[in-house]
């Protein structure tokens, strides 16, 4: 089995890459292509190559249908706002915790890290109901009759969609992994210069941890953008609903009008393409950081 000088290896690699490219792209191409077709056309095309390309009778009717069926821009705004606050808040909270764990020394820090890692095993579905009861009994302040009033219950707000998801064991772990790759001499030198810990964190560690921030931002953005079960439980006003709940609007009409597959594909495209774009923008930093967080440390 001696290697020959023919570029067989390369040909195999290209062939395999092309094959996998097709497998990974096909369902998404199906989604985007179908978003320009009415349901009947989708079903006529489903068994051949046309399913994966916007060919045949293509138009924007499905997108118009989506706009008529639900307040698309409101949903997009809500998801963007909630995701943005969770991401930004999470970057602070989690990177600060990680800074303490990775760069400072205190009793119980190992225990805290083990504890944070243990939180990863809890699937959200199993604690959603107790969490609902909990947030409903938390205090809140509202402005009413010109004065601030203390009441209880967080339901039906942006806050309830945000607060439970800001801190994340996984994100902290990710930051810890990255921070530990930075030379500790940096901190030591700063201490000697009389810098406080906040300064070390803010002026030295944060600026050096760009890739870790990019990764944390992308991953937490994805998990909030894709949240479904929680908003169904805690958001009662259409005005506060995020994008994933919108998919339900198309099943609701099933029994009366038949499934609006074209609109489902259009809506799926609308809520997927923005994150694909975000990912493509950040992917270099993202890849660099996953690299360093997973392997070094």
């Amino acid at each position, binding site marked *: 089995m001696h290697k020959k000088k023919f570029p067989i290896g390369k040909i195999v690699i290209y062939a395999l890459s092309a094959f996998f490219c097709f497998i990974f792209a096909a369902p998404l191409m199906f989604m985007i292509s179908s978003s320009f077709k009415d*349901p*009947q056309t989708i*079903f006529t095309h489903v068994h051949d190559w046309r399913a994966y390309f916007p060919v045949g009778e293509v138009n924007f009717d499905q997108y118009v249908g989506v706009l*008529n*069926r*639900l307040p698309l821009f409101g949903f997009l705004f809500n998801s963007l*706002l909630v995701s*943005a*606050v969770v991401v*930004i*808040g999470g*970057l602070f909270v989690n990177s600060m915790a990680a800074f303490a764990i990775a760069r400072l020394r205190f009793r119980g820090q190992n225990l805290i890290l083990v504890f944070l890692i243990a939180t990863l095993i809890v699937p959200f579905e199993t604690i959603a*109901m107790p969490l*609902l*009861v909990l947030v*409903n009994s938390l205090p*809140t*302040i*509202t*402005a*009413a*009759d010109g004065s601030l009033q203390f009441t209880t*219950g967080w*339901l*039906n*707000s*942006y*806050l309830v969609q*945000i607060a439970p998801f800001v801190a994340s064991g996984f994100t902290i772990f990710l930051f810890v992994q990255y921070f530990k790759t930075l030379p500790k001499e940096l901190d030591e030198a700063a201490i000697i210069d009389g810098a406080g810990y906040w300064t070390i964190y*803010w*002026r030295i560690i*944060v*600026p050096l941890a760009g890739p870790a921030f990019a990764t944390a931002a992308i991953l937490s953005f994805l998990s909030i953008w894709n949240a479904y079960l929680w908003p*169904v*439980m*805690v958001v*009662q*006003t*259409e005005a506060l609903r995020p994008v994933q*709940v919108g998919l*339900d*609007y*198309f*099943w*609701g*009409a*099933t*029994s*009366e*009008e*038949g*499934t609006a*597959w074209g609109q489902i594909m259009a809506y799926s495209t609308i809520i997927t393409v923005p994150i694909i774009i975000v990912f493509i923008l950040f992917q270099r930093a993202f890849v660099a950081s996953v690299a360093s967080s997973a392997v070094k440390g």
Partner: protein
Amino acid sequence: MKNTHKLLAVAAIGALLLSGCSATSSGPKTITMWSHAAGNDQEIATVKEAIADFNGSQTEYVVKLEEFPQESYNDSIAAAAASKSLPCLIDVDGPIMPNWAWAGYMQPITINSDLENSLIAGAKGYYGGKLYSAGAWDAALGMLARKSVLNDLGIRIPTVDSPWTKTEFDGVLKTIKASGKFDYAIDWGNGWTGEWFPYAYSPVLQSFGGDLIDRAAFDKADGVVNSAASVEFGKWFGSTFANGYANKAQTGDRTEFIGGTIALQYNGNWAVKDAYEKYGDDLAILPPVDFGNGPKIGAASWQFGVSSTCGEVAGANKFIEYILQDKYIVAFANRIGLIPATATAAEQVPNYATGGPFSVFVDFSNKFAVKRPETPAYLLISKVFEKAVADIINGKSAKTALDGAADEIDADLTANNNYK
């Protein structure tokens, strides 16, 4: 680092946006109403019309609508009830109402007795002898077919007074399959999930002589849902799939009847509009099959009710009376194709007026309708029956599936002290 300062600023603005603002003012009292029909333009349009008219007709109350997609509506209600944040007015699927009433989500409603009497049975929900919900329509089930196809195959077209018998229907399925012209003889609708299963298939069970629970005291499913007649239903229903008359991989789109690849479609009257547009007078709306105890169909659809925590009960009742005027009942029926809740309204809806193309559904509803058991246990019965039937379709023994269903329902009854 400049960037991080920008981020901080954005975060601060975000925090401001997050703090809720609620202002109470004197003037009309707000009554919030939840509807399950978000995304369903036709239905919601009528609800909105009625609300706008109601708000304009008096100055005491303002009804404010929140729309929910049907898919997750019941979850939203359960979550809101668990957190004591139900709105004043809700709508509720007829068979689920007793559970919500028992669980304390709802309170009885009071409407004008003339109106109450004029509503058809399938548009009213009683629990413990009290009216808890009232609706603008009812749905009905039937079998869709094409006259030309049945005539070609020499199949008798059944009528309300002379429906197909079980033997006759077995022959019909066989004949259709033998003709080789169709992929499958019948589309039972098994691609849909959830409440459709008990809505559509428990009437078939009842026509066989079975039922979901002992209706005398609603305290026992053993010997009822797994009675000899019920098992007979299960075996027969499963056999329609095993024999290739129906497709166990049927999708929820149900386009095959209109596409001409399936001969019969078992469906609700909401679907008949599309079929009528396609086949016109060739469309035959057939009564369900008589499996021995007469044809049966389900009754009770979405209705309006008042939550137990409602602070404006009088206003809420007033609105229910308002939206149940013939004017809106007619609008609902014209738009979503369901059976109008009053006889006077039915006469104003061309499709359902005497002699109208869909009026036969009114006959089905009057003659064959059986309500799903009016017990709080129905919520669980519905899930258990759905799973048992789905398992039977996939080849599980009817006896095992229905015995299991009986045990699970009885265990739930025991755990809840028979929902007393």
